[in-house]
């Protein structure tokens, strides 16, 4: 039943389902929720994210989006290696024919890494043999970009079938959803625009950032278009954490 699907307008348990990556038919993912109705915790997988207004936000360090095998993990030798692995995985979640999305992701991820060099004194300079963490480890606190995001619209939009609004990239920050639309010369498609308009008008926590296509050619990330929290992603955290942490560590860190 579509009424059982995640609904960001729900009064008692508002949740936003973000299907992302190369997913031809997002309905199949939404339908999975209809088959197991009831309370659903926030969730992050390699194909979708389920977030609520009280979610902590999704970062590169959030478990669930990346699957790194034990063998791969044993081969990484540095923070940089793991970050490169993350970058490769994120970019490969977008279609090879989405050149602009891929360009955005490359610029954004490089920006996240560069931010740490700019602010390394604030983050505690390293490396030191006596310290567990290096300031570079904060890079995994960067907000996780969800490319080719398709956001499930509530039944109020269409009660007959699941409908999705398309964003080029989505970020789930604490209590805020940021959608990125890369604006080129394309003529809007009526049906897609209608869904996007509905999303923008009705989602209580969404901000859409329009990125002019030509700004992607800039050498640096278009920081000025985004809220400060995108740039200072480590604020509010006490310790950095890598992606794909062991389950036992997650349990100990859980509040």
């Amino acid at each position, binding site marked *: 039943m579509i009424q059982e699907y995640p609904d960001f307008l729900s009064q008692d348990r508002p949740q936003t389902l973000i299907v992302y990556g190369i997913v*031809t038919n997002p309905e199949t993912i939404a339908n999975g929720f209809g088959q197991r109705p009831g309370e659903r915790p926030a969730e992050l997988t390699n194909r979708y994210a389920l977030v609520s207004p009280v979610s902590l936000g999704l970062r590169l360090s959030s478990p669930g989006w990346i699957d790194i095998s034990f063998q791969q993990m044993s081969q990484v030798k540095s923070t940089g290696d793991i970050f490169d692995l993350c970058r490769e995985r994120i970019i490969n979640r977008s*279609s*090879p*024919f*989405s*050149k*602009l999305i891929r360009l955005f992701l490359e610029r954004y991820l490089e920006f996240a890494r560069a931010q740490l060099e700019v602010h390394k004194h604030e983050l505690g300079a390293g490396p030191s043999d006596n310290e567990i963490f290096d300031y570079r480890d904060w890079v995994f606190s960067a907000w996780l970009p969800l490319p080719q995001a398709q956001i499930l619209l509530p039944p109020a939009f269409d009660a007959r079938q699941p409908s999705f609004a398309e964003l080029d990239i989505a970020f789930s920050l604490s209590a805020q959803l940021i959608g990125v639309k890369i604006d*080129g*010369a*394309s*003529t809007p*498609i*009526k*049906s897609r625009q209608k869904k996007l308009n509905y999303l923008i008008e009705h989602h209580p926590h969404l901000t859409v950032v329009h990125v002019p*296509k030509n700004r992607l050619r800039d050498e640096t990330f278009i920081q000025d278009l985004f809220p400060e929290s995108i740039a200072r992603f480590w604020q509010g955290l006490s310790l950095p954490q890598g992606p794909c942490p062991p389950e036992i560590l997650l349990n100990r860190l859980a509040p």
Partner: protein
Amino acid sequence: MSDTLSKNMSLLSQNTLGGFGGVGEGMALQVTGKGRRILWIAHEGPPKNFTGVDVTDPKNTVVVCQTELPHQKMRSNSLEVTGDILAVAYQVYELGLEPAGIELFDVSDPANPKSIGFHSTAGPHSRGVHCLWFVDGQYVHMASGAPDFTPRHPRDDQIYQIIDVRNPGKMEEIGRWWYPGTREGDDAPPPERIIPEPMDQLRGGDAFRLHNANVYPDHPDRAYLGYIDGGAFILDIADKSRPEAVSHWSPHNPYPGFTHTVMPLFDRGLLVVTDECIKDDAEDWPKLTWVIDARNEKNLVPISTLPLPPVEEYGHRGGRFGSHNLHENRPGPSFHSEEIIVGAFFNAGIRVYDLNNPYQPELIAYFVPPAPANSRVNAIQMNEVYVDENGIVYAGDRWAGGLYIMELDI
């Protein structure tokens, strides 16, 4: 076939162009200073030169201008409008006839086009211009013979030429390129013919000549050529006086030739390439529209084709069945999409595809009207298509139906 077949498209109006409803391969939209919207239409053949239709109200269109060709042994199959300048291609049916070339008109008063320049390409081995591209107000890119070009094979006469038209009264050729081996005196050997046909027939297939050249102002250093049996070419035209081939892709043979349009989707690293159907009753089936992975422009890789309806349903409905012109994302008052592809497929009508997943293009809309009255064949023959910035689709029947205007509901 008597009923219209359609999905997500509906007819707003039809205009048979005063009984001269044979539409060629040129449609371009002008928005005048007063906000009138004039669709300029090329004709498949004589006696008409071009027609201007006021489509400001797409449900109530009015022919505001229809001009005559100088004689019956020629056609003006192609045209383009940029601003208030209309460029028209003149092709003759016999070598050496005149006028052959391009003519520019000032159409600021659409009811009274005023000739402002003519560039002749007539010559002993030339039929003049078959197709032209003019979207920046500065250069015409065209398929034409030339007075000083002698092809080894008479059907290989129309080569790529770049004409500087910034001074309409003194247009000048500034660059040219042809398939290596097709000119008398070339070092390269002549290309192997795909499906040899008698040499005394000038029209038709078995040709290594240019059809369409697409050059986009935001990528002015690249030309995308459909070189008929020669396949698709990407040229580097950073130096317009010396075009150089960057890459080449051709499915011929085993596929039966006639590459027509090569349309780049720049932001996706894709090309959409059509092979024109040129024979009735599916005698040259399949004539496909190819989707090419061009992320590495030096290594073009076909990854899919746009799905066509079954040949057993359409092949013998009458006339041609298969690919032809596309809406080409040209600048101006024009629909632009790198995902939605709109094409004219002769008796399979106008078809609209979603290329979101380029490995599996999906048909999302179509419009196949019945055969128009007075047509030579018993089926529609959608020959040309143009989509405006509001998603209104303008299409032309090759023989009699004239202009069809459809609303796209996708």
